[in-house]
């Protein structure tokens, strides 16, 4: 899992079967110091509570679908939690 910052949401009316009702958010992956790292991605929101600006963590690959109520959905990233805080040893 990796840290990410929610930048916004994505709405798509026309989409493949299985994605109906899945909330999609734009996420900027972050490094451990919460600095942007890598390309933004679209993740399904498995906690249903993540919103723009929120610090989250997400899971990638097949496990992303396992986070959703219907586990056989075509998604490759899912937000699985909202971060309250990170504690790094050098801080």
């Amino acid at each position, binding site marked *: *899992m*990796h*840290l990410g910052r929610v930048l916004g949401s994505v709405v798509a009316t026309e989409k493949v079967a299985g994605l109906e009702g899945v909330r999609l958010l734009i996420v900027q992956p972050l*490094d*451990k110091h919460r600095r942007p790292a890598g390309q933004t991605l679209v993740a399904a929101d*498995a*906690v249903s*509570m993540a919103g723009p600006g929120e610090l989250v*963590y997400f*899971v*990638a*690959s*097949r*496990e*992303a*679908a*396992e*986070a959703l109520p219907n*586990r056989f959905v075509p998604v490759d990233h*899912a937000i*699985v*939690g*909202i*971060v*309250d*805080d*990170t*504690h*790094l*040893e050098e*801080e």
Partner: protein
Amino acid sequence: MKVGRVAGTVVSTINIPVLDRHRLLLCDLEDAEGGVSGYTIAVDVVDAGVGDKVLILDEGSSARQILGLEWGAIRALVVGIVDELIVDGEERSTT
């Protein structure tokens, strides 16, 4: 599996149910020379502490097997604490 070092912890109260009561460790991923090549957030199953050199498993069905789950969005686990690391016949620091 990968070798890493526990750099810190992640605190989260709102998460998917399968992650409830699990400790999340933020681990630097290390190459054979000890250089850092990214990080991952992994579920702790061996009571590793910050600063420990650890063994990280990053594969979903193996992770679920260890946790006794039939399904669940968990992929990365800290599955061991490294006592000794020998590369090219030389012992590398595990602290």
